[in-house]
């Protein structure tokens, strides 16, 4: 950054001085008129101060406009109205006789200048009412919706069908528009980067390309989104609206698929494209995509690594006060998973008289329950049915309960379950093989069960990514004279 740029960046700060002072001067004139008090000297001084402040911000603005970040045309109107405002405010100071007229024009010009300046900083349409309320579309799973060219509805199932997707136009552009254009488009091109059309995205910014088709990790357009929030390079910068995990996932998907700017046409053979099946629902488990990014990304990305994080990223309402009170009365401790979130963990550690009905009541928090601890309670298989409605359940503690293999069939329904504690239960080799079909399961505890090493071996083969804690680690007794080797 050059010195000129440095001072230029004070412009957004400085402009508030003339705005405030000039409005104050005008207000003071009105006040004096209405209350019939003598304000002449104060008004003169205020006009002078305001005019000088306006001059200073013009100077800073000039420097800012000549940095690379702005398009010259976009700045034009703002620049000339700004200069006019400054000139008029000096006149209003100098010619006390015409002050009322001059003041009125100055204030009008000031407002116009401010508006154009605001557009430059925050992006066009910042003040308009429309287009802004479309944000409420954070759905659970993102459907990258390809248009299925509907053929005759009676078409036989085996006929090839055509599937069209235009990811760039339909999914990517709206994200860029919403999150990036305010700094990276025609009006303003921070870091020399514009994202408002294909050629410019390909071109990249001052520091080179931002998009490597097929490789999201190498594409800054994606990887910068994953940097820790306090990282200087994190995008969007601190304080701006952040991308939702779905939006991040869409960008990843698009880049990974080759970052095409065209419509894709695909012929699908031998497949029934029913309305539902036609839409490949992205498994929006950020973790999947971040897990591999994390390796290549030098910087820490742990904030995004678990399914849990992606659950928490989606806002939810907190349980109502009456729900909290209900569980309290049942001795079930309900705590938020983290500060400021509506997602909760339920803990049965205080429960003295467990009733199966208590599990049914968990439906009161069915979308919000992320962790459930039923440890040491006499829970039986058939009582677990209500659990399958807990769509966001991520960790489940069933250790030392009375469940058996049958429970593992039931729990298969949980789409987000990552950790399952089964130690001290009667599950067997046969039963645990079902764990291989759990979509997200990462860790399972099997100490003190009827499971044998052979059963674990089988499960490992079926689901190699699963971490299995069998509790078999034993010490080798140390020889008092020599140090021992570890077993692991």
């Amino acid at each position, binding site marked *: 950054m050059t010195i000129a740029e440095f001072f230029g960046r004070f412009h957004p700060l400085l402009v508030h001085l003339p705005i405030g002072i000039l409005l104050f001067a005008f207000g003071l004139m009105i006040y004096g008129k209405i209350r019939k008090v003598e304000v002449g000297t104060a008004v003169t001084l205020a006009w002078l101060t305001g005019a000088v402040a306006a001059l200073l911000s013009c100077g800073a603005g000039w420097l800012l406009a000549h940095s690379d970040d702005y398009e010259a045309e976009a700045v034009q109107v703002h620049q000339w109205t700004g200069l006019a405002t400054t000139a008029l405010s000096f006149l209003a100071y100098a010619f006390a006789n015409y002050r009322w007229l001059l003041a009125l024009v100055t204030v009008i010009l000031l407002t116009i200048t401010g508006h154009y300046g605001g557009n430059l900083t925050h992006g066009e349409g910042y003040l308009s009412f429309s287009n802004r309320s479309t944000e409420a579309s954070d759905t659970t799973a993102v459907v990258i919706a390809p248009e299925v060219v509907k053929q005759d509805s009676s078409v036989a199932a085996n006929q090839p069908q055509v599937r069209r997707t235009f990811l760039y136009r339909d999914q990517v552009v709206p994200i860029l528009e919403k999150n990036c254009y305010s700094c990276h488009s025609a009006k303003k091109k921070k870091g020399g980067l514009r994202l408002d059309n294909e050629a410019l995205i390909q071109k990249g910014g001052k520091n080179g390309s931002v998009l490597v088709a097929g490789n999201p990790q190498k594409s800054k357009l994606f990887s910068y989104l994953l940097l820790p929030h306090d990282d200087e390079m994190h995008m969007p910068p601190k304080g701006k609206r952040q991308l939702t995990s779905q939006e991040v996932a869409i960008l990843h998907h698009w880049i990974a698929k080759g970052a095409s700017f065209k419509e894709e046409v695909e012929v699908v053979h031998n497949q029934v494209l029913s309305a539902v099946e036609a839409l490949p629902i992205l498994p929006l488990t950020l973790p999947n995509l971040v897990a591999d990014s994390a390796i290549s990304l030098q910087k820490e990305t742990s904030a995004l690594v678990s399914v849990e994080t992606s659950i928490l990223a989606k806002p939810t309402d*907190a349980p109502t006060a009456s729900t909290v009170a209900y569980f*309290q009365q049942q001795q079930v401790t309900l*705590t*938020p998973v983290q500060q*400021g*979130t509506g997602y909760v963990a339920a803990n049965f550690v205080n429960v003295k008289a467990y009733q199966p009905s208590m599990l049914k009541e968990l439906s009161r928090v069915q979308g919000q329950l992320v962790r459930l601890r039923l440890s040491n309670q006499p829970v039986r298989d058939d009582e677990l049915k209500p659990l399958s409605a807990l769509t966001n359940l991520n960790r489940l503690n069933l*250790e030392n309960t009375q469940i058996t293999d049958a429970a593992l069939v039931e729990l298969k329904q949980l789409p987000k379950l990552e950790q399952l504690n089964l130690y001290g239960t009667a599950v067997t080799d046969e039963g645990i093989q079902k764990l291989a079909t759990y979509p997200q399961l990462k860790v399972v*505890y099997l100490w003190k069960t009827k499971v044998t090493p052979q059963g674990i071996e089988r499960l490992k083969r079926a689901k190699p990514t699963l971490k299995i804690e069998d509790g078999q680690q034993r*010490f080798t007794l140390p020889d008092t004279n020599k140090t021992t080797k*570890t077993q692991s």
Partner: protein
Amino acid sequence: MTPHHDEPFRLHTPEFSGLNQQLDRRDFLKRTASGLGALALGSLLGTPSFGATPILPKAKRVVYLFMAGGPSQFETFDYKPKLQSMLGAALPDSVRKGQRLTGMSANQASLPIAPSVYGFKQHGSTRTWVSELLPYTAQVVDELCLIKSVYTEQINHDPAITFFQTGHQLPGRPSIGSWVSYGLGSENQNLPAFIVLVSKDASKDQPLYARLWGNGFLPSEYQGVQFRSGKDPVLFLNNPEGYDGTDREQMLGYLSQLNRLQNDAWSDPEVNARIAQYEMAYRMQTSVPEVMDTSQEPDEVFDLYGPGSRDKGSYAANCLLARKLLEKDVRFVQLYHQGWDHHGSLPKSMAKQCKQIDQATAGLLIDLKRRGLLEDTLVVWGGEFGRTVYSQGKLAANDYGRDHHPRCFTMWMAGAGVKSGFSYGQTDDFSYNIVKDPVHVHDFQATLLHLMGVDHEQLIYKYQGRRFRLTDVHGKLVKGILS
């Protein structure tokens, strides 16, 4: 009464001011008393959070194994092979750089370098160097996150241990466990959130005092409660002789009514603390004997923790007890093991000390792991400072002592939220100065709070006209060790 006593709690963040308006004070107390901590409440009522990004807590519980006296890093984890050839050589001034020494060795004619008499070997898949004095810990080294570059500002026991526990060298501030219990509350309504266990088998060369687990200026229900090994694990908890306790509940009901009347008149938080403590004590009459009873544990568990674990009150038995408390979701368990202050005949005493703690510590890790508790429990091991590379007193081939050394020493963490099989920080060849990634005591404290989901700059208590934090005005999160 000063007006701040009327504020229900003092986490001065916008989300709480909203909460303050929603609830009157009585309402708030009723809810917190039933186990929801201050943070818990704020978010349960759906008040949106502003400002700092909320931290996802990795650790729900902490067990802090405090090695009081300052264990030597040379005979445990900080392997310094180059010293072997320097036996008896004077510590170069270029290394010491005029560092102050304690009165115990400042007047020594020379400062002869004393290499460790104990050997080191590499262990685990990470090939981490561990002393032969810790053969069991060596077997779980893949679980540990060693921090070899901790440093403190204090050179004597009392200020150093107080500094570690409270963030300040002078007595009077709340202990870490009290801060955590104040900030997060407890999920278990029948046991205190902060429980302290002191080894009876350690040599008591330096004293411990109850203020180390005291609540300082926080309301007194947040103080650490010491569980003892004798007939009365918690003093004054049992019914007095000749009283059967049948009308205890009724009695407490009346008492709390009286206390509430008092409270309406005075609004002193200590009255509420008293109400909460009476109620807690009543519940503990059944919960404590239950949790202290290890007779149901199978032999295999005692074998895991080692021979000492059958001897109630020993370090090993306390480790086993700690596991039971953590299983019950007690928020913060702190063990103290004294006897690490080896100014003389260090090799002999060190061997004895290490033997007392080695197997039980490793056993605790294994036990937590197989029960699934290690994933959300943070285990911390360490003393208040390290020891010098030079011998205090006469240096013989197999006998030496080491003085206090605040400028670098080793601690470790394991479990929730920290990298496993990882070493952080580095000391010079004399383990005298830190050459890479220093971790100040306040940094350690900030990191511990972060792992529990608390921003150390937000957990504030206003007292005597100023705002207090565990980390005072310091503390940087040690990002390098977070998993």
